[in-house]
């Protein structure tokens, strides 16, 4: 096993302007926020963000002008309301966007992890999303070669980079997601480059003792970064809940037109 433990400044160099990126977590849970701060610090541009149900990650990167395009099944802050910067950028066409649906994007990521060029998915036919994606070249209605029935083929998604926040990792990249995994294991295994950020760096003996807990074995990882509270203000199961007050503060500042101030403070401090 090769040493993969680096600092964030080093790891962020793995990302190129224009890359497609996916992040771990959904909504306000296990989103790699500390690393997203590094992406903004490093001034990355023209990113293409892909995820199932993102929230503050997409919104803040859009506010920081790091984003060219987004693909998602839902972007928002649940009961706290719409994602203000995403909404503004989408409506004003500052960014490109394509709406997806959970069952397609998650299966596209799973197909990517499996090395399959595409996957067939039930449902979806009859909705207006089909035309959007056929135009985009991401979906195609085909005939099942066995039954002859119409079914939706979904092109696999293999993002350039996946950034996955986990509870425990060793310095070689063995990584353990505790609790809800969402599609993170597939994201990790399907991405061309994998960056792991971890609450704790543990000894490899931890995995020898509990091999079933090794959700992403070392050979997938390109970099491991020790980032305690690395999902904050989103939650990290078994470590901390979401900080709803901080997320509300972000939204309040956005609504007051002070998102740049928020980002400046966020990038500077901690």
């Amino acid at each position, binding site marked *: 096993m090769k040493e993969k433990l680096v600092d964030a400044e080093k790891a962020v160099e793995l990302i190129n302007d224009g890359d497609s990126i996916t992040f771990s977590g*959904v*909504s*306000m*849970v296990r989103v790699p926020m500390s690393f997203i701060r590094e992406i903004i610090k490093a001034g990355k541009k023209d990113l293409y963000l892909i995820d*199932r*149900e993102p929230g503050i990650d997409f919104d803040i990167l859009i506010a920081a002008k790091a984003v060219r395009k987004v693909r*998602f*099944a*839902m*972007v*928002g802050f*649940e*009961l*706290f*309301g*719409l*994602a203000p910067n*995403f*909404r503004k950028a*989408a*409506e004003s*066409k500052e960014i490109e*966007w394509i*709406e*997806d*649906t*959970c*069952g*397609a994007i*998650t*299966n596209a990521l*799973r197909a990517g992890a499996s090395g399959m060029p595409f996957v067939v*998915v*039930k*449902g*979806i*036919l*009859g*909705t*207006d*999303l089909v035309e*959007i994606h056929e135009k985009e070249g991401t979906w195609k209605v085909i005939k099942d070669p066995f039954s002859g029935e119409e079914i939706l083929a979904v092109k696999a998604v293999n993002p350039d980079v996946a950034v996955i926040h986990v509870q425990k990792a060793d310095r070689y990249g063995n990584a353990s997601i505790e*609790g*809800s*995994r*969402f*599609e993170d294991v*597939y994201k990790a295994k399907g991405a061309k480059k994998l960056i792991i950020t971890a609450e704790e760096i543990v000894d490899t003996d931890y995995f020898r003792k509990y091999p079933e807990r090794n959700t992403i074995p070392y050979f997938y990882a390109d970099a491991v970064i020790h980032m305690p509270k690395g999902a904050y203000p989103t*939650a990290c*199961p*078994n470590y901390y*809940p*979401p900080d*709803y007050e901080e997320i509300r503060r972000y939204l309040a500042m956005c609504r007051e037109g002070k998102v740049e101030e928020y980002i400046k403070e966020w990038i500077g401090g901690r």
Partner: protein
Amino acid sequence: MENMENVGTQKIHPAEIMIKAMAMEIASDDIFLHGLASPLPALAMHLAKQTHAPDVVYLNVADALDPDPNEYKLCPSSADPRHAVNTIAIVELLETFDLAMKGKQLGMFLGGAQIDSRANTNLTCIGSYESPKVKLPGGAATAFLTPLVKKLVLWTTNHSKRVFVEKVDFITGLGYEEGKDKEVTVITNLAVFKAGKEGLILKSVHPGVTVDEVIENMSFKPYVEGEVPTTPAPTEDELELIRKLDLDGIRFSEFKR
């Protein structure tokens, strides 16, 4: 619109009427899933499981199977890890989707920014997709699940002409589909509907709500036949269950905006 009912000494909020109505859609042989931004469905699933549907399979967006109701605490994000407390298994959302593709007896709660008379829903955009007046958050699992589930329960806390439109601007989700083994229910802060060949069929109005009030707040006419019954309110025991799961009153959030 906030009709408070008295049960014993306690006031009943429309949220609680809706939770009870949602719970009544759940049978013990069902598998039910709730997604993000879903406090009412989450509470309804717990309520059903603790009353008439003890064997319902409870799945949620926190990837948790059957979270422990005695330790559960409703939180603002439906994916909050506290919604996985003492879970029996981590069940990835994809696995629930697999159940849907396998045609299992799956039920799902979904919202709709626009709902039409076929119970088609729009969660994508107001205006055109290319140049939306409002870019909504997106349909999440709507497009995928609405054609696959056996029970589709749509809900809105904003029963209004803006929500109940003649024709949705964008078909994010499919409602009634003739000949399909799929029951479509629409539960609002005023009433309960089933979707059928006739359109939306008014099944009950909430306590204190009139049929006229229900109809006046829709851009199309629902189908109304005979005397419309009143939606049952939760019992005192049921209210107690709901309140214990949601000490912070998160079930009222959608009504405050």
